């Protein structure tokens, strides 16, 4: 560890801190505006595709990262949104924007319905309930072929750009889809951020960390889980709707279990329960196959994407539990330190307290599991003797 003196110390909430955050936000916005002028249209379409994937990962992260409940059905929510938009716009002439809203509502509702059995279940059983949803969805799409186009697919899903000079050129639709995807991703990030910063977010994490203790503290388990599940599903659904208008065609195979696994991989690689890690992860799961495809040729192709994901996930599991977001945080931490503001009244004269014997040497970096309290070996003595009769 470098000592604090060698690092740039920024006090939280100071002008510098605020300035840097604004600069960061402006840099992202500037990049978003610059890309259409810099990139070829197909690259811009790829960025839009990556934003859509990133949205779904951000949504999944709310449920699986922050909420701690693994979903193996997110491709189904993604697909549900996509087909809601696809069917409503091509079959019934509904305005795409309205179909987005319908998709959000439908996915929220389905998410809540799935959440109810999952509420009473834990760990692997939640995964199984959602797995069932993920497996059923493509089959349902094929069964309701009259509506969905079945395995042939649903073609011609588009969202005409608004009548603005910016979108009037030859590549207007590319720009429009790009901005839709960027706006969608921004919206998803804001929703998750606002949800997680505050009382509700604390409840979500408390439930994940220690369900019993959280309930004892007064966390509304049912309400919290239902909102998390529903919101996560509707973010995935909106991502699916945007996928529908940008790709233009939907086939049930696009929403298989494999896609869910990609979303999960993106979340883990980017950094589960971080705010922008999943965005990074979403871009990776989109672009790694693109890069590996660019390396493939008719003479000897391997599925490099699979290998790359496998290696990254193994590396992350062993060395980088908090994913790329954690890595960046650690690297930044070597240079910059953000100093928290202290409470207004910092007590100077402490009262009789447990803290005085310095306990810092015994800090556990791996958090002790709550149900298995660490035993203080140094304290083996009369108390233990008494305890053991």
């Amino acid at each position, binding site marked *: 560890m470098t000592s604090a003196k060698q690092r740039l110390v920024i006090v939280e909430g100071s002008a510098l801190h605020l300035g840097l955050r604004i600069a960061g936000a402006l840099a992202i916005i500037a990049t978003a505006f610059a890309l259409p002028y810099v990139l070829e249209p197909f690259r811009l379409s790829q960025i839009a595709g990556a934003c859509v994937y990133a949205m779904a990962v951000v949504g999944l992260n709310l449920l699986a990262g922050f909420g701690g409940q693994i979903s193996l059905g997110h491709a189904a929510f993604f697909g549900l949104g996509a087909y809601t938009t696809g069917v409503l716009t091509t079959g019934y002439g509904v305005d795409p924007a309205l179909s987005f809203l319908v998709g959000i509502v439908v996915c929220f509702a389905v998410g809540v319905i799935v959440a109810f059995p999952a509420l009473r279940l834990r760990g692997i059983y939640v995964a199984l309930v959602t797995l069932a949803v993920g497996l059923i969805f493509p089959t349902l799409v094929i069964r309701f072929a009259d509506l969905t186009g079945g395995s042939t697919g649903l073609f011609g899903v588009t969202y005409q750009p608004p009548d603005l000079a910016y979108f009037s050129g030859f590549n207007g639709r590319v720009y429009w889809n790009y901005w839709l995807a960027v706006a969608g991703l921004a919206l998803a990030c804001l929703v998750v951020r606002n949800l997680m910063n505050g009382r509700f977010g604390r409840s979500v994490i408390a439930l994940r*960390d220690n369900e019993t203790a959280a309930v004892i503290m007064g966390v509304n388990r049912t309400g919290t889980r239902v909102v998390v599940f529903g919101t996560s599903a509707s973010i995935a659904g909106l991502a699916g709707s945007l996928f529908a208008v940008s790709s233009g065609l939907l086939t049930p195979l696009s929403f298989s279990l494999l896609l869910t696994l990609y979303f999960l991989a993106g979340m883990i690689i980017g950094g589960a329960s971080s705010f922008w890690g999943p965005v990074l992860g979403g871009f990776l799961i989109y672009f790694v196959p693109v890069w590996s495809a660019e390396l493939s040729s008719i003479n000897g192709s391997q599925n490099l994407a699979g290998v790359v994901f496998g290696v990254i996930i193994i590396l992350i599991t062993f060395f980088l539990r908090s994913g790329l977001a954690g890595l960046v945080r650690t690297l930044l931490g070597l240079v910059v330190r953000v100093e928290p503001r202290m409470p207004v009244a910092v007590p100077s004269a402490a009262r009789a307290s447990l803290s005085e014997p310095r306990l810092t040497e015994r800090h556990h970096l791996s958090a002790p599991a709550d149900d298995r309290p660490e035993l203080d070996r140094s304290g083996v003595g009369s108390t233990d003797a008494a305890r053991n009769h």
Partner: protein
Amino acid sequence: MSLELQGVSAGYGAGDVLHEISLDVRPGEVVVILGANGAGKTTLMRAVSGVIPRRGRILFEGKDISRTGPEQIVRLGLAQVPQGRGTFVDLTVEENLRTGALSRRDSARVNEDLDRWYTTYPRLAERRRQKAGLLSGGEQQMLAVSRAMMSRPRLLLCDEPSLGLSPRLTQELFASLRSINEEWDMSMLIVEQNAAIALGIATRGYLLEVGTIARAGSADELSDSDAVRAAYLGY
């Protein structure tokens, strides 16, 4: 009466762990429940806080809460320091404390209370922005107590607070609980294996054996009892 149990039975599906328990806690009292592993102490705590289904009558300040859900019970003014501290390891210290105040809507007074507990335990103030999982066992126990107190309860349940603490930290913890009892006039129901130290701050106590109350009496009476001595005090 702060808390009154009348013929409470509870368990985990396979069969009852508690059989027709009756006990009470009067306002301002510290009542300790002694018992060996498996006697049903934690089950008793869970039955009171509403985490598990239970039969019989549980009256909190005269109101029957035996059908009430846990989050409602917190709002009524009954808080718990769970066994193993129940730290939310990925939340910061301050967020943990705020979780304790989840049932409250008076945010200004919540902030006042935060400062009060930071003053009581300065170590928590120093580490307020750190993940609570990084705290030591002793610090986590302070956190658990102050978190429970953040809900401004009128009855505090403590489930094995000494578990995993060194003898010295255990001493300090109980000293701290006693001062909370005195300063806030806080009623307390403490489940504890360490009989000696628990009886030291208790007004009265119950001896729980295989899910039934084997003995009841004042702290002094229990300390003097041969059975308690032999089983829990080790002399």
